[in-house]
């Protein structure tokens, strides 16, 4: 079962700052779908270097969303992409789908 994203880190940081929490969610809703699309475009066209760059960006979001296993997978995947290998595309896409579903409901 894929681990589920959460907003614990952001909630801890925000405290009573509702505006910050909302700002974070707005940015997440804006940035994530674009980055997901970019990932799919690069990986489907086998642009491994560019795919590695977008995986690097996305892994930061995994971390912020408390997805430690997904983060570790992304770290390995990024390295392999830099060596020209596309190894974990299916798993990575599943993680992206999970986050996309989560974002719709926050």
């Amino acid at each position, binding site marked *: 079962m894929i681990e589920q994203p959460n907003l614990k880190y952001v909630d801890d940081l925000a405290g009573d700052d509702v505006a910050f929490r909302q700002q974070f969610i707005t940015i997440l809703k804006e940035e994530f779908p674009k980055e997901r699309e970019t990932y799919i475009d690069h990986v489907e066209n086998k642009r491994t270097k560019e795919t590695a760059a977008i995986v690097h960006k996305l892994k*930061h979001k995994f971390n912020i969303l408390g997805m430690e296993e997904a983060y570790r997978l992304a770290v390995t995947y990024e390295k392999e992409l830099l060596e020209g290998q596309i190894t974990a595309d299916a798993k990575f896409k599943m993680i992206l789908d999970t986050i996309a579903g989560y974002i719709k409901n926050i």
Partner: protein
Amino acid sequence: MNCIVIDDEAMARAIITKLCGTVQDLDVIEEFDNAIDAIKFLNQRSVDVVYLDIHMPGFTGVDFVQTLKNPPKIVLTTSDTDFAIEAYEYECIVDYLVKPVTQERFEKSFQKVKNAIVQKPKVNGSESQETDLEGDLYINIDRRLIKLKFNEILVIEAKGDYIGVKTEKEEYRVHTTLKKIKEKLPEKLFLQIHRSFIINFTKIIDIEDNSVLIEKNVIPISRSNRPELMRRLNLL
């Protein structure tokens, strides 16, 4: 204290800006999504601290650090630790924060920044003077590198295509120019008082109209160098 935040991701900038707001005396005056715009900004005004992402497309954080001539204190922010060891080779880099940064870790980092900024004035203060006095210079004599302590050197004289370095015990003949050795000497201790002479300022015994006495050596003062010598004297 003021700072800027450089990160190509809006989310990361928002988080660092939020963290900056949790500590006292730190204002974020600008955010940048690329390093080049930040460099342009820093050419116009100075800041105390830069929170800098390493991995940015095109012009990276490392490029940024290497580009700045007089960099402010820099705290690196990154998603991984690959650059950590290399980072500390740069004197301006105070800390290395791995994302996601917790408030506790940020506070510790800010303390490091404050300490680094407080230590900065010492460079021109007593610590620097002590370093100058204790410093040394290696000269090449017959394929041997001989160490001379700065505070042992009395006078350096240009003699054609070599120089004479006079210490309290010996005189060394070195194939170099006065200009080259001058670049290696601490300005606080040494002063060129004639086109052919550099003296250790602290070794002066007395000064007559156009000459300086250092041990038993009478060194001429040129008219053009005299004002600087007089300016440096602690005259009563």
